[in-house]
């Protein structure tokens, strides 16, 4: 195992720039590298990476591996697994970090299998065990009802995917020096078994959940798509985005893209208004980063009141109209 050294990150590129998760990986990667006195390197895969390698150096990497190939323009499972596994076999990192994103969720377990390594997904905390120097990954389990700490003792690399927006992003320092290595990213298209036919972007109505300062979410208690209109109305009033619980989406009251939670979107607005939803941990997982949570629910025992800062117990159909009336008055001032 002494053969494996250093920390390798799998960065992500979004619309020609380093994606936010890349800066977050560089942030936590730098912390762990400094703690263990190891080198921090990052792999960037894409079709035209331009100056992003130098950019990654400025954000804290010591070494950047650039893998360019037209087949890597978008994340492709087979192609990226091949390129990343190849690099790991050559660079032999001790720790490999990815984002717990569309790409990272898919890539990490395939790499773990190919490299016969150990993987902990969806990390919210990463640290080094002072006695052994081994990475300790803390991850929510049982929908967020519990936290598990995981260590990979016997195999290398120690792989983890990091939940977006849970670690501090790196800051840019243009004076930082390092090495950009252009790899020959040979991807034989005949070995790609799964073909991407098309990618469809679905536009959400209204404000984007991820960017919103205010999010208003409705749950199963709303009762119908017609009643869901009230959630939209409140969101518009506050220039906010509309969220939903899984049952509200599955009832067809709103598109699945609005689902907030462990298997939906992760939001961290200043204000999160939860209406007629019980506050299951799988839902809270997606909004617990909110500065202020307001709960409206007719059941005083509902779990949402255990995580909310303000609450009103009662029927939302009576509460929301009065609340919106007063809001209009206050906001007009």
């Amino acid at each position, binding site marked *: 195992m002494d053969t494996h050294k250093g920390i390798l990150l799998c960065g992500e590129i979004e619309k020609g720039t380093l994606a936010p998760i890349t800066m977050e990986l560089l942030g936590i990667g730098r912390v762990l590298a400094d703690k263990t006195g190891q080198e921090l390197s990052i792999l960037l895969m894409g079709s035209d990476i331009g100056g992003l390698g130098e950019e990654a150096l400025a954000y804290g990497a010591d070494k950047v591996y650039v893998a360019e190939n037209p087949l890597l323009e978008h994340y492709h499972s087979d192609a990226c697994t091949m390129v990343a596994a190849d690099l790991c076999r050559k660079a032999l990192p001790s720790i490999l970090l990815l984002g717990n994103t569309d790409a990272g969720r898919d890539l990490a377990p395939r790499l773990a*299998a190919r490299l016969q390594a*150990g*993987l902990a997904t969806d990390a919210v905390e990463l640290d080094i065990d002072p006695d052994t120097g081994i990475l300790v990954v803390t991850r929510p389990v*049982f929908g967020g009802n519990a*936290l598990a700490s995981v260590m990979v003792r016997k195999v290398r690399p120690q792989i983890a995917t990091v939940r977006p927006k849970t670690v501090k992003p790196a800051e840019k320092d243009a004076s930082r020096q390092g090495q950009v290595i252009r790899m020959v990213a040979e991807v034989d298209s005949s070995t790609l078994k799964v073909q991407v036919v*098309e990618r469809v972007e679905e536009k959400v109505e209204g404000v984007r959940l991820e960017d919103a300062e205010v999010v208003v979410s409705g749950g199963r208690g709303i009762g119908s798509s017609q009643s869901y209109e009230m959630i939209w109305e409140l969101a518009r009033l506050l220039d906010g985005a509309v969220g939903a619980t899984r049952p509200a989406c599955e009832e067809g009251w709103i598109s699945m893209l609005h689902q907030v939670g462990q298997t939906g979107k992760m939001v961290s607005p200043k204000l999160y208004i939860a209406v007629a939803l019980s506050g299951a941990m799988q839902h809270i997982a997606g909004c617990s980063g909110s500065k*202020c949570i307001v709960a409206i629910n007719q059941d005083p025992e509902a779990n949402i*009141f255990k995580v909310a800062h303000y609450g009103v117990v009662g029927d939302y159909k009576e509460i929301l109209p*009065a609340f919106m009336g007063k809001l209009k008055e206050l906001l007009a001032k």
Partner: protein
Amino acid sequence: MHIIVCVKQIPDPEIPSAKFKIDPATKKVVPPAGVPPVISVFDERAVEAACQLKDKNGAKITVISMGQGKVADVVKHALSMGADDGITLQDSAFENLDSYGTAYVLSKAIQKIGEYDLVLCGRQAADWDSGQVGSILAEMLGIPVVTIARNIQAADGGLRVERVLKDGYEVVQAPMPCLVTVSNEVGLPRLPTGMGIITATRKKIPAWTAQDIEIDPAQVAPEGAHTEIVKLSVPIRDVQCEIVTGKDAGEAAVELAVRLRAANII
């Protein structure tokens, strides 16, 4: 088409948080009395996806589950939804395996089953939430994998699969045999029919042991685990909720708006 669906039995993930208890020493969840374990939610959706393919194209569905105790119950549930055959994998050597070990045991069972066109898994087990077993299993079987599917159709001798993405979806064409992990977007699971329940009760569900599927003991030995859970805890939440009241709901609502304004939140 022969479809193999991997389903896991888990403690009911929908028990209210207030009733959620763990035993930090054994790192296990202590389910509240009287709440039986259930089929993991995404695995139930995987069974649903298999049944949809069967409805449309005709297929034989075999369900496998590795677990202890009443693990046959989740297999029966899948049979009552429309699966044809079920097998449990039960052996003391299979207890507390990590994702890698789990995938290894499933791969051995699938190799024993023999011919198949499609293996379905859930996108993640709804207890430990790892989302690893499906992809590792595919790599072990040496077949292509498509993760987090919201729709699966037979097309052009292979499968046309829609994958859920953050801002939409991606359509891919995969050859068979392959493995697909299923998300809840495939649709609500069908309810068992009366006939389905009767067939499921009568069906013989063989229980395979480590020996039956030629497990290499080193691969499932605790010392061989790739990942180790060193601690399990329940996070402390110290939020105090300020319950806003009034003489009626309307008045409480007005008071809420006033307080949020005073606290500079809106």
